[in-house]
């Protein structure tokens, strides 16, 4: 009786929870995109700063601090999700945020989007999607 709870068959029982965990992380990508936007706005003020000044800046530059607060909220949700899934599956789902970040980079910061850059980001998103998909199948 004591050995039942430690059975390797728990993987099958947890299948639904693992899917739920993946969904939570996927929703978090919007949070990540907003955080990246704030971090870039804040980081722009540190272009001549050293590493120590950068560390202080994370706590004293409002948009930078706000960006990391969003990351904090994300981390709490992510730790919760990690309990029910594999790190190699859940961690890469975050990269869905690349799509939102690329769009925001062009719209907010007017960064140039040449075809090679768009292709490169698409390849990375595809790679990350393949990783996420493959994690559920052994």
């Amino acid at each position, binding site marked *: 009786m004591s050995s039942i709870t430690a059975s390797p068959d728990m993987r099958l029982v947890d299948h639904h929870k693992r899917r739920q965990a993946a969904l939570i992380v996927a929703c978090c990508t919007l949070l990540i995109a907003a955080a*990246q*936007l704030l*971090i*870039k706005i*804040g*980081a*722009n*003020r*540190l*272009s001549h*700063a050293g*590493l120590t000044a*950068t*560390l202080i*800046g*994370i706590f004293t530059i409002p948009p*930078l601090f706000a960006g*990391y607060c969003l990351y904090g909220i994300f*981390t709490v949700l*992510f*730790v919760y999700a*990690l*309990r029910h899934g*594999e*790190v*190699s599956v859940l*961690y*890469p789902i975050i*990269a869905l945020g*690349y799509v939102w*970040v*690329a769009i*925001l*980079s*062009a719209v907010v*910061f007017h*960064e140039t*989007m*040449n075809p*090679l*850059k768009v*292709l*490169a*980001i*698409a*390849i*990375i998103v*595809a*790679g*990350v*999607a*393949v*990783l996420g*998909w*493959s*994690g559920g*199948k*052994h």
Partner: protein
Amino acid sequence: MTTPASSIALVLTGSVIGSVGAVFLKSGALVLRPTLSSVVFNWRLGLGILTYMLSSVLFVKGMSNGELSVLFPMVSLGYICTLAWSRLFFQEVITRAKIMGIGLILAGIVCLSLANK
């Protein structure tokens, strides 16, 4: 505006260090119970957060010069490292599809560097 190589190097280094943070978070999450003290006194989670902070300083410094659309996707190097740590510390399986994912991410990072020129 193009992105300096030093910024790319800082972001890539930060990503590798950040992937180590994920290992601590995962090992911390494995021993987590639904009590506040279980979260607060979990040294694995603490170490994970510290590692993330170090990675963040390098990341922010890298971000301070250059384009967000070039630098942010470079973070994906961390996923490749995460895969290696997952195999090493959590005995997770590396399938052929995962290897394909790694190949795509690496190809994407190379393309992104070329697009930056």
